[in-house]
């Protein structure tokens, strides 16, 4: 019988409940997150227009670079200011 050592990080993330999903976007603040990839802004500009037509409030955010995870401060700011967030992946 062989005993080996686990080579993994042994991650056991604590389960966290998802925030309740809104049933409608009326009254919500919608975050639009640009990951700074080419032409992501084209898509988000159009989404912002469509949101404005419906009278929904929009906040715009951008990651410094698409190659790295969003900084913790940015994620926190979005969570404090928005009810939902739409992230655009583009090229």
């Amino acid at each position, binding site marked *: *019988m*062989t*005993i*080996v*050592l*686990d*080579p*993994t*990080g*042994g*991650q056991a993330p604590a389960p966290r409940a998802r925030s309740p999903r809104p049933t409608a976007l009326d009254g919500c603040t919608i975050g639009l997150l640009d990951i*700074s990839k080419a032409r992501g802004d084209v898509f988000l500009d159009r989404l912002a227009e469509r949101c404005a037509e419906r009278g929904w409030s929009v906040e715009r955010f951008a990651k*410094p*670079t*698409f*190659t*790295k*995870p969003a900084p913790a401060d940015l994620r926190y700011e979005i969570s404090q200011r928005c009810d939902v967030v739409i992230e655009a992946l583009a090229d």
Partner: protein
Amino acid sequence: MTAPPERRAPALPDGIVAVVKRSCPTCALVGPVLAQLQAAGVALTAYSQDDPAFPPELGGALDDTALELSWRLDLDTVPTLLRVEGGVEVARTVGWSRAGWEALTGVEGLGPSLPEQRPGCGSLNVEPDRVDELAVRFGGSRLRSRRVELAALEDEVEALYDRGWTDGLPVVAPTEARVLRMLEGTDRAADEVVAVVPPDLVACTVEKVAVNAVMAGCRPEYLPVVLAAVEAACTDGFNVHGLLATTMPVGPVVVVNGPVRQRLGMNSGVNALGQGNRANLTIGRALQLVIRNVGGGRPGEVDRATHGNPGKLSFCFAEDEEGSPWEPLSVERGFAAGASTVTLFPGEGPRSVVDQLSRTPGSLVRSLAACLRTVHHPKLPLAFDAVLVVSPEHARVFRDAGWDKARLRAELAELLALPGAELVRGAGGMAEGVPAGLEDAMLGKFGPDGLLIVHAGGGAGLFSTIIGGWVNGATGSTPVTREVRE
């Protein structure tokens, strides 16, 4: 060396303790002396490492065939004679020496027919094929990784595949004995955190690196290089998260400089970028296994590469500094000559530049520039770095003409200042390119620090090699050099 496992001293019977083995002629020689001590009224306790019926003069000894007592006493020689007071060893002598034994026991006239002295034999607990297992069995493990028991009928290699721990090739089973042996390669504590490894951002200890280095096939002396590579990869500047996640065909390329190359027998010559050298291959592989197993970076999950490249199994080589006309890459990057370093570059697979006819630097540099221009796309400037691996035969052309590295770099920069009119979108019938409006600009293929020049390869072949990079600078990845702490 790591701190050896703690050897809790065993409680010993007071008086004289002897440890012997039958297979040692000196132990056989001193059998009558032990009987003589017993007859003189000495409180003698003997232990035998290989046969409890030995020595016959005492009618046998206590059984230490498991070698626990020998290991805890950290014996290296038998016979070993101890004086014990209050359960604690106060004096020790090894081998046979009449004077030494008489001083230790306080009994005169020992072994009158024996020579004055006779060296002992190696103690069984330090035999190379036992030493690691004994440390595991009695050492009280310092290692914190979860133990995974493989079933007796489970094939070891298959079991490690089944758990998703391999890169597609078989790995060496990371048993505790192997991991402890690997940790002997560094003086860093097993629980020291080396880096936070993306994408799962896991704090990775020296122990976890050692486990993966065992799996990759490293020898213990490679571990400091692997540790330096992991540290370098997991910096914000190198951004191995992005390198892993990108759709582009890139991975960490490790270039090793300094005396550690010779100590590990690394290859910087014939087939330096290819197969066949254990250190080159397993160091690069260990880094990738750390990213996979510790960081959780697996292809098809966070690794989204469209094609990838075979170098993502392992891509590590050494610079040929001795044959180079130029200063080593490490010195160029600010490290002292004689320092051992790893330089990590975010690279694709290598491609060859063939120029067998240029005998002047002016001609050869044009060939190199023409090929360097094509990195990722001949119409895309400034976005990607590259490594130029110059072979000895190509380097000779520059050496003979007195071109230093700065001259080569400057000439390349001049040749790779590209007219915007050739680069704009649509030029040459190709939609790819830089935005309109740059027609009149001159754009460099590489930024000022965007070309790394390394000397490596076999003595025959008028070829060089280009390793294209990935999105460079703060947006993507910057090459990172770290000193190897040996």
